[in-house]
């Protein structure tokens, strides 16, 4: 990473920390410790299942909300407040600014997910008293959640490069919801005929496939995740995020900063 990208990324991370974005960890900790104590009392033999499901879903949702609401303001806020003027009047290329912002937000989300993961494992230890080998798959589920964050960050940046923050948030959140049901959309495309089939197939391939990145339920049941899926998901997420970032850069390169 070149030094200008690293400088912009570290400043983006610092902004998130000072804007108290990581305070969400407190809400997460309260939610998870409360849930762990509660399920320990009301569920029989499925405490681990409930804690993993609840914990990983919370990690995912908290992260997605941060990715969208911080991501949509990354470019538009800098334009609106004109802080971008003094950055781009230096030897900083526009693509470096976008990439730096992306890494800054992605870094924030990884750090956030790391602390949340510690919380999930602590809750797991509390209800199960010891770790077992299948608990290791929770790490894979967390890795897939981080891949989801990368895609959402890049999409938020893409929308932020041409749209208002409100519309960007609507677009990004809609894509997240539709992407979560992308498997159903593919099934629908398989059953449909004619123009509907073509349209449904095109949409199914265009929207991010978040359902393939969601292995929370199977991991909670102690089922392993195949190595092939890990490789495919990694390549898919990196490719999708790169494409969305390239789109953001292409739009931002031509944008007049009035």
């Amino acid at each position, binding site marked *: 990473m070149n*030094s*200008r990208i690293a*400088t*912009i990324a570290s*400043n983006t991370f*610092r*902004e998130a920390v*000072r*804007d108290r974005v990581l305070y969400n960890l407190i809400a997460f900790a309260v939610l998870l410790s409360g849930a762990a104590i509660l399920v320990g009392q009301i569920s029989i033999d499925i405490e681990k299942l409930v804690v993993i499901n609840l914990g990983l879903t919370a990690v995912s949702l908290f992260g997605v909300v941060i990715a969208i609401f911080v991501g949509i303001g990354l470019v538009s806020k800098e334009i609106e*407040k*004109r*802080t*971008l*003027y*003094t*950055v*781009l*009047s*230096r*030897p*900083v*290329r526009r693509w470096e600014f976008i990439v730096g912002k992306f890494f800054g937000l992605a870094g924030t989300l990884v750090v956030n997910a790391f602390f949340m993961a510690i919380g999930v494992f602590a809750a797991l230890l509390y209800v199960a008293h010891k770790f077992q080998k299948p608990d290791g798959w929770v790490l894979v589920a967390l890795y897939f959640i981080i891949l989801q964050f990368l895609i959402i960050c890049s999409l938020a940046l893409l929308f932020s490069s041409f749209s208002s923050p409100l519309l960007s948030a609507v677009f990004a959140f809609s894509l997240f919801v539709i992407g979560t049901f992308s498997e159903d959309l593919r099934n629908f495309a398989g059953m449909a005929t004619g123009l509907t089939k073509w349209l449904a197939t095109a949409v199914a391939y265009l929207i991010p496939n978040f359902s393939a990145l969601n292995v929370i339920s199977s991991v909670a049941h102690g089922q392993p995740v195949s190595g092939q899926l890990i490789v495919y998901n990694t390549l898919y997420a990196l490719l999708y995020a790169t494409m969305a970032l390239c789109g953001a850069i292409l739009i931002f390169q*031509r944008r*007049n*900063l*009035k």
Partner: protein
Amino acid sequence: MGFWRKRPKCALRPLHLNVEEGEIFGFLGPNGAGKTTTLKMLMGLVFPTGGSARILGMDINDSTVKAQIGFLPEQPYFYDYLTARELLEYYGRLSGVVGKDLSGRVEKVLGRVGLPDVGGVQLRKFSKGMLQRVGIAQAILHEPKVVFFDEPMSGLDPMGRREVRDLMEQLKAEGKTVFFSTHILSDAEALCDRVAVIHLGELRAVGAVADLTSGVQGKVEIIWEGTSVPASVKALGAECHITGDTVRAVLPEQSQDLALDVLRRERLRLVSLVPVRTTLEQYFVEKLKRSEKTVGSLA
């Protein structure tokens, strides 16, 4: 047009301008004249529909030229979660200044803009004038060869304005080129080697302040002893004021000989005759009035 995209507005007509190395160049014009748009184009923030510009002989799109320029935008706003020191370090790194050199320069520049003791204070606690000083600090931190200031005196008190004027003179003495836009004409008059006047996106005049103002119709002030103004002097278009037993008249330069003839004829004792110097402000107002008339007659 109009629904998907905003109607394009011609902010700047062809602008041919050369700024010499090492000079302080003032870019003058009323609000909406195109000063900020010109600066934004030079900084690569907005793209011109045509034409080219070069700084230090390099095309403005060449990113290496940007390491050698400093820019202060109009009414600057900075990341308010950072301290002044952190902000300057951030900008320094983006300009390629690193390590001990960076921390040394940050302290030096904070002192230079009159903020030596507030480096550790978050910018959200800064007044408008202090932010303007931080803005100037970030523009000169990396020791650029050319500095662009957009309304640098805006938001500053008289002391602050004086300090910025001194700083600009220091920059010139260090061999740097200073290009600044302003609508405060007294600042331009006091500082600039040359100025350009822009109005409605069009360049109206370029030159040294003295050369520009000498072209304006001059006036003279005549004072004589007496308690009344002869009618023939009034007829020359003189503005007259009687104070005690002296009369002060200001009239066009070309009427000066006729007025003196009248005073001699009337046997009035002349006290003084002084040419009234044309200020840049007078020049500016006259120039803009003329250009508005031209636009009006064309319309």
